């Protein structure tokens, strides 16, 4: 009943309204001379310094869904859910050098999306289109999942309704506000809101990891409670440690997710918005602060076990919504006003990534579909406009996914999303280092990797479902005599690479045209203040042209 949660609802609503106002005001923050340019709307003027980038990228990568789903996984399966920690450790040294190269080449050529880079590097609009579509398809369900994060909070506060529309009304309103200020302020809105979001999350988690163990009898008791729960469960693969079957899955999932994370368009958007190479490199050392946070958040799942939390019922009869365990834990253990703050942290935590993801998807559509295929001579102002409208469409689509489809569908799609975005690795990440691969080889490799990844995901069963039951593929399906499982994405991308290499060798032997590399070796080291940066010259040319036209 929502009346029991009145204090929580008031605190939540107040903080939510506060950030909404900030979202609209953000348009004037570090205001550009001309907002009608995709560099301004979609990349915040490529001007963000160390702190803003830290909050923005941190707020972008560590989403509300992560904060809700990771402890839920720990609650349900134990140690396997802790993969989020090694995953977010290996990512930074892994991309330390790669991303600065991407930043430099994008800075010099005015690239807004990873597909822009691929088009130029491999001289192939088709490959760029595939990269763009992969990015959009992988991002959409991710946006929808942010809504699942908000919904878990609303459900715990008793804000539910009798029919689908009433139940979803708060989310529709929240997303309408989000859509409006993203439309107006572009990337500046989530950048500004991220300050509030992350501060709230840091406060809530610091309090939680000090106060809750004190209330629950200490860490030893918390781990003991978790151990007892997993011992009693019939599932052989849960427990507070890994077993022989799921270790390979654990490390391949951590590694594969790390490779995938910075291929997601929204991560790249956050990185390209930074001012120079040093900002990115310094952030690779500073962002792991969020990993520590995530590790502690993951342990909230065990605290929920120790506190005896029972998850709320799910959408279908007889199921439970394990995403509600963390909100329920807060509700049970914190005073009402502080639970309200914690809910606001999760709710606002959903808005920041949702805004950046919709901007990234909109940029992909604008640059690699609209400008490439629909209107070749689009001006920067037209590009910005198309992107703004597309960001609205993307958000409506995400809300529709949650309102009209089973939320499980979005969760499945996100699982698929991680696997398919990995298939852009050879073209985007390796492309930053080498042009050895033939463009057609990359296309064929992508297709094979996608097909294989889908098939493998389809084959994975779980106790409750026959298909799409997770990303842990049993190696016995390949004919190995073992009970070990492996992360689907790693296998798919390995095959993708092998096929791309093979086709490249064949095409090279057959002397098939390879196109012209639009970049130079020097481009990958360009830094702020580089005299040959193109976006500036482009913009000057435009402002000079406009009065005439």
């Amino acid at each position, binding site marked *: 009943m929502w009346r029991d949660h009145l204090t929580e609802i008031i605190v939540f609503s107040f903080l939510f309204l506060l950030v909404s106002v900030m979202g609209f005001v953000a348009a004037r923050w570090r205001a550009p001379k001309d907002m009608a340019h995709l560099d301004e709307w979609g990349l915040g003027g490529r001007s963000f310094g160390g702190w803003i980038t830290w909050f923005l990228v941190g707020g972008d990568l560590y989403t509300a869904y992560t904060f809700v789903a990771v402890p839920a996984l720990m609650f349900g399966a134990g140690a396997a859910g802790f993969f989020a*920690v090694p995953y977010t450790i*290996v990512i930074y*040294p892994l991309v330390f050098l790669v991303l600065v*190269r991407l930043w430099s080449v994008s800075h010099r050529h005015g690239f807004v999306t990873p597909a822009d880079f691929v088009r130029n590097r491999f001289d192939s609009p088709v490959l760029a289109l595939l990269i763009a579509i992969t990015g959009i398809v992988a991002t959409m369900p991710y946006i929808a999942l942010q809504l699942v994060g908000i919904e878990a909070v609303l459900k715990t506060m008793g804000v539910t309704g009798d029919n689908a529309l009433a139940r979803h009304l708060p989310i529709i309103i929240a997303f309408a506000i989000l859509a409006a200020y993203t439309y107006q302020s572009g990337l500046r809105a989530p950048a500004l809101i991220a300050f509030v979001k992350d501060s709230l999350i840091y406060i809530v988690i610091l309090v939680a990891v000090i106060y809750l163990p004190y209330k629950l009898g200490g*860490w030893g008791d918390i*781990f003991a409670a978790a151990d007892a729960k997993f011992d009693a469960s019939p599932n052989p693969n849960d427990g507070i440690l890994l077993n022989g079957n799921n270790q390979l899955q654990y490390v391949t999932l951590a590694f594969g997710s790390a490779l995938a994370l910075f291929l997601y368009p929204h991560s790249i958007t956050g990185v390209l918005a930074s001012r120079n190479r040093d900002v990115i*490199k310094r952030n690779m*050392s500073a962002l792991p602060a969020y990993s520590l946070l995530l590790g502690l958040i993951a342990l909230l799942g065990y605290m929920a076990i120790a506190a005896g939390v029972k998850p709320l019922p799910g959408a279908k009869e007889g199921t439970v919504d394990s995403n509600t365990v963390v909100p329920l834990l807060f509700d049970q253990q914190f005073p009402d006003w502080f639970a309200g703050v914690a809910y606001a942290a999760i709710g606002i935590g959903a808005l920041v990534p949702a805004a950046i993801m919709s901007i990234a998807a909109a940029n992909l559509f604008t640059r690699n579909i609209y400008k490439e295929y629909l209107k070749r001579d689009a001006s920067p102002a037209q590009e910005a406009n198309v992107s703004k409208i597309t960001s609205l469409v993307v958000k409506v689509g995400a809300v529709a996914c949650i309102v009209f489809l089973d939320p499980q569908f979005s969760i499945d799609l996100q699982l698929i999303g991680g696997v398919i975005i990995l298939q852009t690795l050879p073209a985007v990440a390796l492309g930053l280092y080498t042009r050895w691969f033939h463009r057609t080889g990359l296309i064929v490799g992508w297709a094979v990797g996608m097909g294989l990844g889908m098939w493998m995901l389809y084959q994975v069963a779980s106790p409750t479902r026959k298909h799409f039951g997770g990303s842990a593929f049993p190696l016995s399906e390949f004919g190995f005599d073992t009970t070990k499982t492996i992360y689907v994405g790693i296998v798919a991308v390995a095959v993708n690479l092998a096929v791309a290499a093979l086709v490249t060798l064949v095409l090279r032997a057959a002397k098939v045209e390879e196109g012209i590399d639009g970049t130079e*070796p020097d481009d990958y*080291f360009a830094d702020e203040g580089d005299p040959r940066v193109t976006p500036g010259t482009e913009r000057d040319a435009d402002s000079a042209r406009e009065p005439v036209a």
Partner: protein
Amino acid sequence: MAAPEPEAPTTTAPTRAKDHSPWNWLLFIPIVVPLVPVFFNGDSPRVFGFPRFYWLQLAFILLGVGTTTLVYQMTKKRGGH
């Protein structure tokens, strides 16, 4: 300690070696170590009630931060442009 200098820049390829440094190899440590379950998949010793599985993996975060910071400091632009 003297940071290893890449070969003196020539006029034909002024920035060619900007990203190249032996220090970069250190980055492999925080990529490989957190992905070896033998190191962390155990219960003892416990630290503040945390089984090794948990405290050691959280400690790997420091390994990552330390390494990227070291590499950044050792490879950043030496003596300006």
